[in-house]
Structure formats: C-alpha cells, structure tokens
C-alpha cells in the first residue's frame, strides 16, 4: 500500500494506520495554525506596544462579544470534527472483522508467547500472514503489560485474569518491532518482540515447521534454537556472566548452592524441574523472577534444551 510517510510517524503497515495518520496530521496542522496565531499575536503586540518611558493610562477594550464568540465557536467546530473522526477510527480498531485469524497472546515478565490455532507457538516473535485480519486474544500471567506495535498504530493493555482483544491487518511484509508499553518492572525495556509479516504460503510453512518441533535437527541444535526463541537468552548468559538468572556456562553436573543454603547436583531432573517449577529450588543469589514454562514447552522441547545446556560443558 502506498502511503506518504512522515518523518514524525513510523511507516504505516496496517489497514487502520492510514486513517490514524490522516487524523494525526489534521490535528497537527490545525494546531500549528492555532499556535502560529498565538505566537504572531504575542510577537506583534510586544513589538508594537512595547513600553517606552512612563506607562500612563491605557485604553484598550476589555471585552468584545463578537471576538469572544469567534474564538470559542471555531475551536468547538474543529474539536467536534476531531472527536467524531477519532471515535469512528477507534470503533474500527475495536470491532474485529469476521473470520479473523485468532492468536492467543500471553504476556509475562518479560516476554511474549504467541499460540497459533493449530498448536504452533512462539516466544517473542509473532508471525502473521499479510493481508489477513488477525485477532489477538490477550492475557497476562502476572502484572499489566501492553501490546504495542507502532507501525500498526495498535496498542492494548494486557491484564491478568481477564482477556482483552485487539486486531490488525498488516498491509506490507516485513519485520516490525513490538514493545511492551505498560511499565512492568525491571525487564520492561527488554520486553521486546517482533511481528514478522509474511506471505500466506510462508505463514503456512512456518506453522508446519513449528508444530513438528525441530524436525531434521539434532536435539542439541533444536535446543540452541529454543534457547533464543523461547527467550532463555534474556536472563541466562552463555559466557559466565550472571544476569537475572545464573549463566548456563559450565554449570551442568556441578554442585550448586541453593537459596536455602543446601547444596544440590545440577542434573537433568533439576533442570526439568527448574523449567516447569522455577521457584521450587532457587539458586542462591537470584530473585524468584522466572516464570513457569509449564504448558509453553512440550516434552521434546524440554529434552532439547537440556541436551543443549549439557553440551555447553563440552565446549
């Protein structure tokens, strides 16, 4: 779709964006006119009526019905236009078209999970087909987050224990940043994801590839892939530096200190438990911030991650 792009707005890539931009620019230019009138008035009067010497008596008008009605009525008219236009646009954003592809969005500290209709899921990457309306059914596992894709002009809060809904229809293929817009704590600015808009056929291919879970890859390779796609990378480094969670480097098979003071051998069972119930046995020195991956990761994916973490010891 051809849209004029303005340096102050990100490129428009959804069906509702052009209307929002038109309204944005309408307000911008009407406001600019208003601002210039005020500025011109101030400058002109300062120059013309600058005090030189004694002030003396001044005889200006202190009211003028015609003037006052003018500068009340004109803004009122403009504002009614803007209000109605804005409300219509808002309704378009809130009424989901029939037959939209429904994707479940789960937000939690500090990543996004997207569940597609046929069982494929992805973390921090929302893959959608171009030119099709996509409905997002969203909820949060902890605090309030907000789903924000600037290029689509879409934003909707994501609440715990309640579903909120929004939708969009992408008009151009590409990768668009997705932000969390509601402050959600330490990792708020890291809670970044991307919307990848692809052709319909690529979308189908992506669905297939992701529902069979790493077919054609070894467990280790698949685990390495999951390490980034499932956002382990956000908190667990590979180079030994501690982030929000312990680094994976050289950790498998060692004895680790738990927060209750006891010691424990890091084996496969401990890793599995830590993925599914992270707060059961906390490693010493870390906050209990990791969410459970119960229901997000399938058994094969857990196996793959364990295989990958084990492999890190040999390198």
């Amino acid at each position, binding site marked *: 779709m051809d849209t004029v792009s303005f340096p102050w707005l990100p490129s428009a890539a959804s069906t509702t964006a052009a209307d929002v931009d038109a309204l944005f620019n309408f307000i911008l230019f009407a406001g600019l006119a208003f601002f210039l009138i005020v500025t011109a008035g101030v400058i002109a009067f300062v120059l013309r009526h600058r005090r030189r010497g*004694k002030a003396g008596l*001044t005889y*200006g008008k202190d009211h003028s019905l015609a003037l006052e009605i003018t500068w009340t009525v004109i803004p009122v008219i403009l504002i009614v236009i*803007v209000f109605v236009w*804005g409300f219509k646009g808002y309704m378009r954003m809130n009424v989901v078209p029939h037959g939209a592809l429904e994707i479940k969005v789960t937000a939690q500290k500090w990543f996004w999970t997207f569940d597609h209709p046929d069982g494929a899921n992805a973390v921090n990457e929302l893959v959608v087909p171009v030119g099709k309306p996509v409905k997002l059914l969203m909820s949060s596992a902890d605090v309030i987050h907000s789903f924000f894709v600037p290029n689509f002009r879409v934003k909707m809060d994501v609440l715990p224990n309640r579903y909120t809904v929004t939708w969009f229809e992408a008009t151009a293929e590409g990768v668009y940043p997705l932000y969390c817009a509601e402050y959600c704590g330490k990792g708020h600015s890291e809670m970044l994801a991307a919307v990848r808009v692809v052709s319909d056929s690529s979308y189908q291919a992506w669905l297939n590839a992701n529902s069979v879970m790493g077919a054609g890859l070894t467990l280790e390779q698949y685990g390495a892939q999951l390490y980034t796609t499932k956002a382990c990378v956000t908190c667990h480094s590979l180079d030994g530096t501690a982030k929000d969670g312990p680094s994976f480097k050289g950790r498998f098979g060692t004895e680790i200190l738990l927060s209750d003071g006891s010691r424990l051998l890091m084996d496969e069972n401990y890793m599995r438990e830590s993925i599914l119930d992270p707060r059961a046995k906390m490693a010493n020195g870390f906050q209990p911030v990791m969410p459970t991956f119960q229901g997000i990761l399938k058994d094969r994916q857990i196996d793959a991650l364990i295989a990958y973490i084990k492999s890190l010891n040999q390198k």
Partner: protein
Amino acid sequence: MYTGPENSYLKQPRGLKSWLLTLDHKRIGVMYLTAIMFFFLVGGLLAVLMRVELSSPARDVVSAELYNRLFTLHGAIMIFMFIIPSIPAAIGNFVLPLMIGAKDVAFPRLNLASWYIYVVGSLIAVASILQGGVDTGWTFYTPYSTSTNSAVITLTFGAFVLGFSSIFTGLNFIVTIHKMRAPGMTWFKMPLMVWGLYATAIIQVLATPVLGITLVLLIFERLFGIGIFDPAMGGDPVLYQHFFWFYSHPAVYIMILPGMAIISELIATFSHKRIFGYKAIAFSSLGIALVSFLVWGHHMFTSGQSELAAMIFSFLTFLVGIPSGIKIFNWVATMYRGSISLKTPMLYAIAFLLLFTIGGLTGIFLGTLAVDVHLHDTYFIVAHFHYVMMGGTVMALLGGIHYWWPKMWGKMYNETWGRITAVLVFVGFNVAFFTQFIMGSQGMPRRYYSYPDQFAFLHEVSSVGAYILGFGFLIMVIYLIHSLYRGKPAARNPWGALTMEWEAASPPTTHNFDKDMKLEHGPYDFDRVEVEDEEMVKA
C-alpha cells in the same frame, strides 16, 4: 541578610522559634517556598541523572532497578512534594491575604499545621529511599504495586499524609476567600489570581480525599491482602486505575489552575492594561475545575474499558480543553494596545503562553481516541505533560517568584541575569522536551531504561536540553540568593500594579497593612488609575 525596616514580618519577632511556631501566613508561605524549592532541586537532580543514563542506549550509568526507582521518585517528588503545593501553598499563602486586604488566612493554626503535615509527609515519603526505594512509577498501578517487594507502603503513606496538607490548604483558602475579603471587594473585583486559587481549592478539597482512601486501600491490599484490587481474589486492578485517576486527573488542574492564575496577574501588570475578558477567565477556571472531575477515563483508552465509556471521556476531555483555549486568547488580547514591559516575570509569562499552547494542543491528540491508542504510554505523553506542567505551571511559578520577590524579601533581583536565565530555561526546556514529542510519535515507549538504536540521536539531544535547563536553574539559584544579600531595596510597588498586595510595604509588616483596607479601585483599572512603575522611573 536582610537590612530593611525593623518592623517587617521577616524581622519581627526574631529567633528560630518564632519562625517554627509562626502563625503569619507570609512566614508560612516563605517556609513552604523553601521546602518546595528544595524538593524541586532534588527532583531535578534525579531527572538529570535519568537523562545522563538515557543519553545513550547503553546500560551504563545506573542499573535497571535503580533507573526504575529514579523515575518513580522523580515523579512522586515533583507531583506530591513540589508542584501540587508549589503555587497554592507557597505563593498563594504569601499573596492571597495581601491581595484581598486581609490580615491573615481564616485559620492560621491550621495553616501552620498543614506545613508541618507537609514536612512529615515528605519525610515519610523520602524515608522510602532508605528502604531501597520504590519501583512502581508514581501512579502505583496494581497489581505491580501489590506484588513488587519495594517500599510501596512507605511512599504511598507519605503521599496519603501529604494529601491532608493539601486538603487543609484548600479548605483554608475557600473560607478565606469567602469571608475575609476587604470591604468593597465583591466577587468580580477580586484579582484573577484569587479566582484561580479558589477554583484550585475546590478541587483540592473534593478530589484529595478520594486519593486518600485509594492509597489506604492499596496499603491494606499489601498488608492484609484484602483482595479489592487483586484479580486472583475477585478484585479488579483496573478499578484501582479508575480511583487513582479520579483524583489524579483533577490534580492536574490543581497544578495548572494556579499557574494560569499567576499568568493573568503578570500579563495585566506588564501590559499595564485592563485584562481582556475578566469574567470569561474567572468562569473558565471554575468550569475547568468542575469538568475536571469527569474526564479521568481518558487515561485508560487502551485499558479495555467499554467503547461507550471511552467515547464519553473523550468528549468531556475536549470540553475541558475549550476554556483553556479561551484563556490563551484572552491573555493575548490583553496585550493588544497595552504598554508592554519585558521584565523577567513577563518573559516567563510569554514563555508560558507559547509552551502551554503547545502543551494544550498536544492534549488534543491524546483526547482523540484513535490517535491516543498510538500515543498512549509513549514519550509523547511524557512530553505533553512536561509542556503543561513545566512549560505551564513551572514557568508561571518562576514568573510569580520573580514578580513577588521584591514584596517577599524587600530586595530586587538582578534584572539582566533574570532575563538571560529566562531565555536559557526556555531554550533548554524546548530542546529537552520537543524532541520527546517526535520520539513518542515514532513509538518510543515511556519508562524504558534502554531503547532501540533508532531513538539514540533524539535521546542525546533531549539530554543536552536537560543539561542546559539544569544550568539555567543553577544561575537562577545564584542570582536569587545573591539578591537577598546584595540586592537593591525594593519599592512598595515596583511594577506599577493595582492589586492590593502592592499597597503593603516591601516587605510587609507583620499585620500586612498599616490601616484597615478598603477597595478603592478594581485590580486592573489601568484606564483610570495613574500608577507608576517605580522600577522604570528609577532607571
């Protein structure tokens, strides 16, 4: 420090105790001014520290946890300890009784009590730093605020206590304005400053108790898990937002109305002309105050509230914008055919006119439903409220401080440095915050510790603006304090104004006036009362 007449309120009675137990509205005003300027300094330093961190996308100067604590504390200090009490409690306390020809506010003991409550509330709030700070943002949204392990209870309890200080000031002003006016001063002969303070006081009295109860519930939620805001227990976190904004939106007008009030005085005095549309300005203050209670939902257009509610809140939001626009036109029209003097206070008034216009107009973007969806929770919001609060209220406050400085201390500040600083502050402010409008439009979310590289340049420019602004304030502190020691003695009426406070000595005596006051002319009768601008005559 002060070498003026022995019988001024600054000298009589003497001693620290006479200040700490004073019932004199002028001294209480001065004590408030000292306290709020201290917190403005602290809040400002926090802001500069944030801008240092944000000057590049790198996570280098402070940690993410510390950054979150910085912006929470910056917001809480600036809102609850600085801007809400700034004009009413500090400037208003000093000038209100003088302007209406009274000897004091109606309840001087309550007035002193509200200062102590302010100090205690501030100390409690600041004590949260010792417990490791708070990382919720100044809005304390649930369920984040009920689940984080930072010192939320201490800070919210501080804000709760501060609320009482605000309520008592408002109550005191309402009664003072109703009952203490000098004979002859009818409602429409009151200076517009008094109208503005009156409208503000109404909001303070009506809205603050609701914030009080909301914060108490939040504290109980954390302490006892009463479940009212907890979705897991049948409660609703969005309900918290409704209650919070029911106070906090009117609170925005607690912050801006007194700023508008000062601007009316400055524009009239320095244009030396009868103010244009007196009644329109007076009634628009009341109108803004009343409608402000009905617009809170515009903070929640993306929270999943019903479309009907969103439509109503959007409409009412526009409604509250109209009176502000009318005021701007009235002020500009007042300058027409006046005799304009560009003293420092007038420079701040002009800065207000331009910046507040931008602040108000950008509010239209945010009140517009479809556009707000894109801009909500981005830097556009940050820029918008800084243009309104800092470009509006703080510019008015600075104008007011310079305007009443001679009355307050009996000393003149250095006019040249005053003007230079005003320009510096204006430039620095625009560089710091106009960039944020652009970032916000491009989608930069607020409260981000780090950010994608595409925003790096604008963030860097914004940080430079903040440094210029900080530098401007530094100069201001120096020349203002210098004026207390070395400033020229101030005349009784240095600007040639017609409101009553200028009939008192500079600085006033303890009982304000040497005689019982009676209204002899209207506050803006520049077309029939000859009055000299004593500063101009001397120069």
